[in-house]
């Protein structure tokens, strides 16, 4: 891993298109500004991992389970409709 030391307001460039600016340091928190082309997605790592995992799980849903899930939801919606009448 490349390790660089930067001062407040200083920048790092990655490739031709990506610039990271150190905006603020407050205790253990560091605020970064990242400028990059829009086809590059930038995310907080822990949230990114969670969403990636949910995507992977969703892509492995068993069609039988999905049919069953649809029936469960539909029956609840139907009940809602009936009790509102």
């Amino acid at each position, binding site marked *: 891993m490349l390790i660089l030391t930067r001062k407040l307001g200083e920048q790092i460039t990655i490739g031709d298109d990506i610039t990271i600016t150190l905006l603020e340091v407050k205790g253990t928190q560091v605020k970064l500004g990242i400028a990059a082309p829009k086809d590059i997605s930038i995310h907080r790592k822990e949230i990114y991992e969670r969403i990636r995992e949910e995507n992977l799980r969703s892509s492995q849903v068993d069609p039988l389970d999905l049919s*069953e899930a649809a029936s469960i939801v539909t029956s609840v919606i139907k009940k809602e409709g009936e009790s509102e009448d």
Partner: protein
Amino acid sequence: MKINTSRFGTLTLKEEKIIHMPAGMLGFPDRKRFVILKHREDSPFFWYQSVDDPDLAFVITSPFLFHPEYDVDLTEALKGMSWDPVKKDVILLYVVVTIPRGCPHKMTGNFIGPIIVNLEKSQAVQTVIANSPYTHNYPLMQAKEKNQTSHHPG
């Protein structure tokens, strides 16, 4: 055009049905074209089928069906896609659904990673909602039942 899928065989679809995702889905950056297929009549779910990978399909649904007050700030995502100014009625919102094997009642929706679809541009982006009260594994049935009891106390 024809697309091959492992779940639904070969589908013939109009070109304009294809949704382009410049950044793909998180964890699947190379798959950039999708179609939305209705799961079946009277199902709240859809398949989000990859055009480029026959095996790849996600399950999605409307967040509002389960969480009528679901409200996320899309400003950044819209800006990132250069969609502004954008009319509200061309934007569709979906959440990715997960169902643990054999436990359909434990289905969850990922409310912090919605897919935003722009119908006018036939483009979509999966955005990340940070600093929100929502979770990545919101129990859909619990939500429905909770809504039901709150609408009809006693």
